[in-house]
């Protein structure tokens, strides 16, 4: 019987081979994700399938695409809410929107939008600021299942109370209920809100520069990446922004110590809002 340490080394090898297999077979690259998170999620998957090792899971993934899709869902981040961190939206409204208003046409990239709650939040904000009609929002994620949910714009009625409080704390100007129609347990958001949203598949890890945009919002995605991948994605963002464009990250993410740090100035240190310098 192997001791604890040998077991761990073996399991480490198996995990690396599994991630390699997913990449080679399906093109999704999780090799540079934070390992502790990936390991936890895959352990849960092992238990559910009553498999004994990552090698067995690798076999299942390679030969059964439905198992792969389960794992893909495990490894994508689908927990979000409308106006998550209201202070972030309040700060966007105060610091960023007035400058965006000076452009005749604006492009916004919401990277890693998951099921779309934060995209609709931002669409509402743009509507209220009179900017929506001249905005184009690209909402992207690597997981097409969650994009489908986002596209529908239907969320549980049970969450509306919490979202209303978030909306108000974010400086909302209307009655939040005007943006959705509730029927039984489903709240359908006003289709007008998605008129200028394009939902598209894009993988931050393997795909390239998106397009020249005025604002990138990417919240609580980078925390799942290791430092080298974070740096790579940060460079992708810097390249995708116009000069003077804005970057909004999650409250625990920042561009400090990344190679692009010097290209940005800090607009709101606490809410992690940055502006790409003009020179």
């Amino acid at each position, binding site marked *: 019987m192997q001791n604890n340490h040998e077991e761990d080394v073996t399991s480490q090898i198996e995990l690396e081979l599994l991630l390699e297999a997913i990449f080679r077979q399906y093109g999704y690259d999780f090799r540079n994700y*934070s*390992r*502790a998170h990936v390991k*936890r999620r895959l352990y849960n998957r092992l238990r559910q399938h009553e498999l004994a090792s990552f090698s067995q899971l690798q076999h299942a993934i390679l030969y059964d695409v439905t198992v792969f899709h389960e794992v893909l869902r495990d490894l994508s*981040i689908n*927990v*979000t809410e409308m106006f998550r961190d209201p202070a972030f939206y309040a700060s966007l409204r105060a610091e960023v929107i007035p400058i965006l208003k000076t452009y005749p046409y604006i492009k916004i990239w919401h990277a890693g939008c998951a099921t779309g709650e934060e995209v609709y939040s931002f669409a509402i904000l743009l509507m209220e600021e009179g900017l929506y009609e001249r905005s184009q929002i690209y909402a992207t994620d690597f997981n097409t299942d969650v994009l489908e949910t986002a596209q529908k714009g239907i969320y549980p009625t049970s969450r509306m109370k919490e979202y209303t409080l978030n909306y108000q704390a974010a400086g909302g100007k209307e009655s939040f209920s005007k943006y959705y129609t509730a029927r039984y347990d489903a709240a359908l958001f006003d289709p007008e809100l998605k008129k200028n949203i394009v939902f598209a598949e894009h993988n931050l890890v393997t795909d390239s520069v998106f397009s020249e945009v005025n604002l990138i919002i990417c919240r609580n995605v980078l925390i799942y990446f290791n430092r080298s991948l974070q740096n790579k994605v940060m460079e992708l963002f810097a390249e995708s922004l116009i000069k003077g464009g804005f970057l909004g990250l*999650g409250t*625990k993410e920042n561009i400090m110590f990344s190679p692009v740090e010097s290209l940005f100035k800090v607009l709101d240190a606490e809410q992690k809002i940055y502006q790409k310098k003009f020179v």
Partner: protein
Amino acid sequence: MNYHAIVIGSSAGGLQALKTIISGLSPHFKIPIIICQHRSPYSDSFMVQFLNELTPLLVKEADEKELITERHIYLAPPNFHLLVEEDFSLSLTVEEKVNFARPSIDVLFETAAEAYQHHLIGVILTGANHDGAKGMMYIQKKGGLTIAQNPATAEVPIMPQTAISSGCIDYVVNLEEIAELLNKLCKT
């Protein structure tokens, strides 16, 4: 030295318990401590400031990808899970709540046990739910040392009691004596 890190899990009544432990640590205490205290997603930095004033050690909220360092006490930020990576850095996630909690004690304990193996001490304190029991079992399985607050000295006994009942606890200790035990175990 045998131990390289300590993880502490606490919930209802945790602030007082943490206060008692942290203020009882030796001023020369070296081993890093990582704390998962359940709290509201909207809580501010009060707890960090409060605890930081009790000790010459540095108490801070964990930053993502921060390297775990001696003489530091890290607190899980509200509304994030806190995980320990194999290179002994900290990472954060926003995945689903575990045991109705984010941060979850099990998530911290299990990942810390993976990283530190038998060089880890786990401490479970006062609380009203079952979070942490699985994590303590995992710490023991990896050869680490497990300590539960004596439920009789806990503001809410459920959490330490659950861990004790699962049979994975090495020491059941009165709250006032936990710091002393840690000082002894981690003496350099």
